[in-house]
C-alpha cells in the first residue's frame, strides 16, 4: 500500500485549517512545469518494450505510454493544454543524477524500484515484475550460472542485475571476468559478437533483445531468477503533490482495466520497429501488483545474502 498517501492526506487535512481551498499553491515539480511550460520525460534507447527508439528514433514503449497518460493528467490539472513535452535520453548510469539534478521530471523506462535507490529518488507504483536471468548463445553450451566459471560476462553499468550477478559470483566463487557496457544494446552486442558468453539482465528485456536480434534462434534465456525486479516510473523524492498525481494516474489505469490493453499492445502483439511479438503473458507477480498497487522496493543483492 502507498504509505505516502496517508501522509499526503494528513498534510492536506492539516493545511485545510491554514490555507483557503481556492488558493491551492503548486509546489515542486508541478510548479516547475507550470513555470517553465515544459515537462521533461526521460527515456531509454533500448529497453524493449518499455522505452526504446523506433525506426524514426522516437521514444516509444509500454512505459512511455503510461508516462504520456501522466502528461495528459498534468495538462488537465494544470490547465495547460499546450504543455510542451521534451524527451531526454538517459542511460542506466545517468538516469538518477539527471532526475535529481532536475534535467528530467520523470523517467519512464525499466528501472527497478530498490531500497537503495529510494534514498535518492521516489517511485510510482510497480508497473512490471521481472528478475535477473542471463542470455547466452545456444552454441556456447552454457546451461546454468555455474557454467560461467572463469568465463567473460558483460553487464550494463548501473543496473541492479550487475549487482545480483556479482553477488552470485562472489558467493559461488566463480571467478567470472566482468566487462562493463553502457547500455543494454551494447551489452547484447558483446554476446552477439562473441566478446562475452553471457549477459545478466531482467528476463523481459532479454526476450526483447533476443526477438530483435538478427538470428533470434541463436540465443536462449536461461537460469533461475537471481533477483526480483519490480519496475516503476522514477520520480524525485519529497515531492508529494507530483507523486500523488502520478500514483493516481497509474492506479487509475489499473482500476479501469486499461492496463490490460496496454499490456497486450506491448507484450502480446507485434511491436515496432521490426514487428516482433514478445508473446509474454502477464505474470502472477504483475497481476498482484496491479490488484494491490504498491511502491515497495527490493534489496541490493538480488536473491543472495549481503
Amino acid at each position: 500500500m502507498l504509505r505516502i498517501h496517508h501522509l499526503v492526506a494528513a498534510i492536506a487535512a492539516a493545511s485545510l485549517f491554514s490555507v483557503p481551498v481556492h488558493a491551492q499553491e503548486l509546489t515542486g515539480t508541478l510548479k516547475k512545469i507550470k513555470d517553465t511550460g515544459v515537462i521533461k520525460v526521460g527515456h531509454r534507447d533500448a529497453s524493449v518494450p518499455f522505452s526504446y527508439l523506433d525506426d524514426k528514433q522516437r521514444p516509444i514503449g509500454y512505459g512511455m505510454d503510461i508516462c504520456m497518460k501522466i502528461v495528459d493528467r498534468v495538462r488537465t490539472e494544470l490547465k495547460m493544454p499546450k504543455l510542451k513535452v521534451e524527451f531526454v535520453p538517459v542511460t542506466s548510469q545517468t538516469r538518477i543524477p539527471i532526475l535529481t539534478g532536475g534535467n528530467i521530471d520523470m523517467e519512464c523506462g525499466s528501472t527497478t524500484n530498490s531500497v537503495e535507490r529510494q534514498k535518492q529518488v521516489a517511485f510510482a507504483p510497480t508497473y512490471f515484475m521481472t528478475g535477473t536471468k542471463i542470455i547466452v548463445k545456444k552454441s556456447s553450451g552454457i546451461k546454468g550460472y555455474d557454467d560461467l566459471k572463469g568465463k567473460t560476462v558483460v553487464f550494463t553499468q548501473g543496473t541492479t542485475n550487475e549487482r545480483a550477478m556479482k553477488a552470485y559470483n562472489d558467493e559461488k566463487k566463480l571467478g567470472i571476468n566482468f566487462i562493463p557496457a553502457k547500455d543494454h544494446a551494447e551489452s547484447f552486442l558483446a554476446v552477439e559478437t562473441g566478446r562475452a558468453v553471457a549477459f545478466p539482465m531482467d528476463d523481459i528485456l532479454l526476450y526483447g533483445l533476443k526477438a530483435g536480434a538478427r538470428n533470434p534462434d541463436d540465443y536462449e534465456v536461461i537460469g533461475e531468477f537471481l533477483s526480483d525486479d519490480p519496475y516503476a516510473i522514477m520520480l524525485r523524492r519529497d515531492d508529494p503533490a507530483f507523486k500523488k498525481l502520478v500514483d493516481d494516474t497509474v492506479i487509475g489505469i489499473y482500476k479501469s482495466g486499461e492496463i490490460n490493453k496496454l499490456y497486450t499492445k506491448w507484450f502480446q502483439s507485434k511491436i515496432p520497429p521490426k514487428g516482433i511479438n514478445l508473446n509474454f503473458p502477464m505474470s502472477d507477480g504483475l497481476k498482484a501488483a496491479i490488484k494491490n498497487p504498491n511502491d515497495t522496493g527490493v534489496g541490493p543483492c538480488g536473491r543472495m545474502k549481503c
Partner: protein
Amino acid sequence: MFSGFDFDVIQRTLPYLWQGMLFSLGLTLLAMLGGIVLGTLLALMRLSGNRAISLPAAAYVNLLRSTPLILVIFWFYFLVPIAVKQFTGNPYASGIGPFYSALIAFTLFEAAYYCEIIRAGIQSVPAGQVHAAQALGLNYPQATLLVVLPQAFRNMVPILLTQGIILFQDTSLVYVVGLTDFMGAASKVAQRDGRLVEMYLFAALVYFILCFSASYFVKRLQLRITPPR
C-alpha cells in the same frame, strides 16, 4: 571483405544522424565562442601584475589542463545541477538541460586551453605597441582592447581555429553521458541495428572529411594572413 555488411543502414538513418551533427556543430561553435571570451579574460588575468588576480587564473588553467575531459564532463553533468540547486536554494530548480550542461563543461574546459593560446598571442605583440598606446594617452582597457588584442587575435586566428577543430572532435565524448551528438546518434543506430562496422566506419569517414577540409582551410588562411616579415 565487406560481404554481409549493410551500408543501407546509413541512408535509412541519415535524418537522425544529421540531427546529431547539428548538435555537435552547435556545441562546437558555442563552446568555441564562450571558450574564447572566457579564455581572453583568463589570459588577461594571468598577465596581470597583481598576483591576487594572476594566481587564481593560473590555478584554474592548470587544474583544467590536468584533468581529462571525460572527468570534466562527468563533473558538470552530474554536479552542476546539484550545485545550481544548492545555490538557488530551490530543491526543484529547473534543470539546465543536457545540452547546456555539456555546453558549460566544454566552455569551461576549452577556456583553459584558449587562455594559453591567447596568452602567447598577447605576449607576441611587441611591448613597444603598448608603450606607444600609452604615450598616446590610452588607458589600460583602451590599449588592451584597441591595440593589443586586435593584433594578438590576427596572429592567433589559425591556432584558435585549429583548437576549434580539436574541440569538434572532443564533442564526440558526450557519448559517455548518453547524449545524441553525431557520434551518439551513430552509436545508437549501430547498437540497435547491430551495425557497428558500418556505422563506425561511416562516422570515422565523416569526421575525417570535415576535420581534414577544415584544417586545410586553416592552413590556407594561415598563409594568407601571416603578416609579411
